[in-house]
Structure formats: structure tokens, C-alpha cells
């Protein structure tokens, strides 16, 4: 997947692709592109909120830990609260991110989407 993402995105940073280069980096091995892992969050929001996400989505993410080849990760999203203004439908504020199987946060952050009709 990492190779395919590099081709699709044009990001050939050797930290993702070159084992020798990456072994000398702070990570000690190649790692997945942060944007590739982050796409899981947007996918989760699209599946949950459909047109509303594709038309009004707002995302703020922090990349907390690297994902190495062979690791399994899972995205998550949870509505924290509804931001209503002056009686309007407002927005849903969601806690979002991606975790490894051991529960370690890989990415975390916040997403905002217009409340469903």
C-alpha cells in the first residue's frame, strides 16, 4: 500500500520507501505516509455523514506516531457535542483519529460537519 500511495500522491520521500535510508532515520524503518493514514479519518466521516462531509467537512489532525509496514490500524470517530448557534442546526464536533491494535494513538484530532437535516 505504501508503494501505491507514493505513486498515486507523488510523495517519494525515502523515509517511506527506502529501507536503508529509513533505517538511519529516527524511525529505524520505513513508515507509512501520514496522509495515507489520515485518509482513513476522512473515509470514516464520509461513510457517517455522506454529502454533509463532502460539502462542509472540516478536519484538524495531529500525527502522533508512525505506522510501520505490517501494522494494523483502525480509524474512529465520536460526536463530542453539537455546536448550535441561535437555534440553527449547527455543526457536529467529533473526536476522530486512528489507533494501533494496542490502543496507541497514531493520529488524533477533531472534525466538524454540518448537522444532518
Amino acid at each position, binding site marked *: *500500500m505504501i508503494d501505491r500511495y507514493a505513486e498515486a500522491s507523488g510523495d517519494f520521500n525515502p523515509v517511506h520507501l527506502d529501507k536503508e535510508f529509513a533505517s538511519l532515520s529516527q524511525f529505524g524503518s520505513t513508515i507509512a505516509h501520514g496522509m495515507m493514514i489520515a485518509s482513513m479519518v476522512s*473515509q470514516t466521516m*464520509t461513510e457517517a455523514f455522506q454529502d454533509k462531509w*463532502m*460539502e462542509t467537512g*472540516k478536519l484538524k489532525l495531529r*500525527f502522533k506516531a508512525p505506522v510501520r509496514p505490517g501494522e494494523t490500524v483502525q480509524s474512529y470517530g465520536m460526536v463530542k457535542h453539537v455546536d448550535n448557534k441561535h437555534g440553527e442546526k449547527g455543526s457536529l464536533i467529533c473526536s476522530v483519529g486512528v489507533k494501533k491494535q494496542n490502543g496507541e494513538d497514531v493520529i488524533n484530532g477533531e472534525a466538524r460537519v454540518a448537522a444532518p437535516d
Partner: protein
Amino acid sequence: MTTEYAGLLAGQTVSSRVFRLDVEKVAAYVEAVDDGSMPWGEGDVQFVPPMAIAAMALQGAIDSIGIPRGTVHVGQEFEIIGPVRVGQTMRSEAVVLQNSVRGEIRLMAVAFTVTDDNGALLMNAKSTLLLPAKI
């Protein structure tokens, strides 16, 4: 064209690029990230995954700035103003928000504005990178 990243100033425009995510590019992206939520749209009108737009905008800026090998991406934001159709032509302008050094690490934040053919805003985005302090 590459620009020495160490000398970039906050507020400086570092790239302004036109790009187009056609059917093939979007399909390659969707496959690469295993996006089960795509394709999204109705009939012949399909939309581009928002993160694909942010990724392409970021890569355009990286190519312009000459970001060094080993640069680490530590933060990403985007705000969708309007959905982008597959095949739609877009312009992405990247402006440096922050370029500061602490020890041997440089923190660089870049803001992106993605617009359509008519200049209408499609997306705002921001990427935060860690890179070597010195070239």
C-alpha cells in the same frame, strides 16, 4: 523551480499550481488508500476524496520548496468549502505561515488555498512539517 526552504518568510507565497484530478488519478488514489466510501456522487458526476485534494496541494508545495528527504509531516488540517468533481481543474496556492528553528529541527507550517477555474474557493488547508534546521 525550488526555493531554499531555510530562507522562506511567513506570508511568502511558495507555489501556485494548476492541477486536475482526473478519473485515472482519483482511481489510483482511491485504490492506494483502500477507500471504501468512494466513488461518491450521482450518475456521471463523481467527487474527489477531500484528502486527495489536500495531498496533491501539499505535494505541489513540497516540490516547489525543495523540502529535504526525511521531512516528517506532523499535522494536517482542511476545510471543505465546496465538493470537487472528478476532472475539475483547480489552482492551489501555498503560503508559508511559519518557518522557525528550535535546535536542529525546523518547524514549517504552510497554508493552502484551492480554487476553481473562476477563482471560487474550494478548500482551505494547512500542513505542518518538521525538517532539518539547516540545508
